[in-house]
């Protein structure tokens, strides 16, 4: 049902990660997550410069149905939050792996990372009802 691009890494809590050319990591929520939440109406993204530890709640996505925290899969410093989500939270519904990205993070050297999954591993989590 939902899309799970093969070139990304995932978490059990439905975030995805994409390593960009400059070594920063783009983070968002998966297609499965946005489908479960339904129409998003409000997204709170972290400000640049904020230090995050893996597992920290770093953003809030709120739909008509429910509010949900987004957890940072990595330890590092926020380089940017997606400012476009303030006026267009629906970007996450329309393009969860592209224009709907939530934050970009510069991982700290040797920083802890939450356990991450490849596409097949994440697909198994979704199939198991996670």
């Amino acid at each position, binding site marked *: 049902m939902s899309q799970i691009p093969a070139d990304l890494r995932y978490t059990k809590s439905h975030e995805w990660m994409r390593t960009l050319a400059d070594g920063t990591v783009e983070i968002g929520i998966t297609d499965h997550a946005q489908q479960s939440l339904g*129409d998003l109406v409000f997204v709170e993204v972290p400000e640049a410069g904020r230090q995050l530890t893996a597992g920290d709640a770093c953003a809030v996505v709120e739909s*008509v149905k429910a*509010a949900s925290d987004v957890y940072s899969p990595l330890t590092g410093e926020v380089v940017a939050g997606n400012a476009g989500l303030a006026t267009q939270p629906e970007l996450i519904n329309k393009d969860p792996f592209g224009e709907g990205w939530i934050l970009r993070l510069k991982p700290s050297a040797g920083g802890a990372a939450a356990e991450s999954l490849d596409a097949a591993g994440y697909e198994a989590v979704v199939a198991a009802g996670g």
Partner: protein
Amino acid sequence: MVDFGGWDMPVGYGSQIEEHHAVRRDAGMFDVSHMCAVDLRGAGVRPLLLRLLANDVGRLTAPGKALYSCMLRPDGGVIDDLIACYLDERWFRLVVNAGTADKDLAWIKEHAKQIGVAVVPRRDLAIVAVQGPGARAKTLPILPEADRAAAGALGVFFGVAFDDEWFVSRTGYTGEDGFEVALPAEAAAGFWGALRDAGVAPCGLGARDTLRLEAGMNLYGNDMDETVTPLESGLAWTVVLEGTRDFIGKSALEKRRDARDARKLAGLLLLERGVLRSHQKVFSAAGEGEVTSGTYSPTLERSIGFVRLPAAADGAVEVDIRGRRIPARLVKPPFVRNGKPKIDI
């Protein structure tokens, strides 16, 4: 799909916000077959309802006229809210909520048997609500041909029964014009398909909730239940205390009306970003309250809700949302009617 009063029902068929806008701008339809139509038949039906309902069915003099009312416990608590439609002197039809239907039927039957009124739940009927400014025009050509003229002539809050099966009323739960159509269950899928072909958007429970909240309409179980009275639920306009009619719960309401700890249900508009949800705490100068229903309003693009709080509360309040106090304002519902905002934002 979610469980709703024992029925598997869709939250949405796609985007719940697009479904909402379809109803405000043109036409949407809801399968509301979970709602239970109940026929009350017998010479004593009007006296029975004069006693059972807080609103006054004595006001129903034109055949087909419908009335919204609460049915109360002796202590004034709300057993259910319902629509009563006067069809003739020996026949009223009620439409009650799904989750409360069994207890409603038991309560009604207990009183009906004393005056010889038959109570017949119509589980054989499906109900489709077609709502929106374009709803009636799209529905009429799809009704059985013999029924179109009478259905097209219905005034607001009137219904008409055809041969004890098809029943069309100009009622709804969205704040828009439209019909609610009861029909034999086996005809429902064909009717639904014909409406879809006519451009009526299928809508789920999610849009139903945002539409009814914008329209300032209560949801039983959220905004009122057996622990509160209609006077504490924004429903004083549905209670007729004047006159000598003695309905169940009347004396309790008269006693509690002027209580020092009186509460009320008010509309709530969130002034900053975020979404009101039921059970959030509300702080006012007159004391604390609690959100009973909250959502995001697609029409206003703000969060709206209902809050039960001390009757003296007014104006500015704060809502605890995820540990932060966000400013909000008490307002008088409805928030939206016939596609137009009814409050200043």
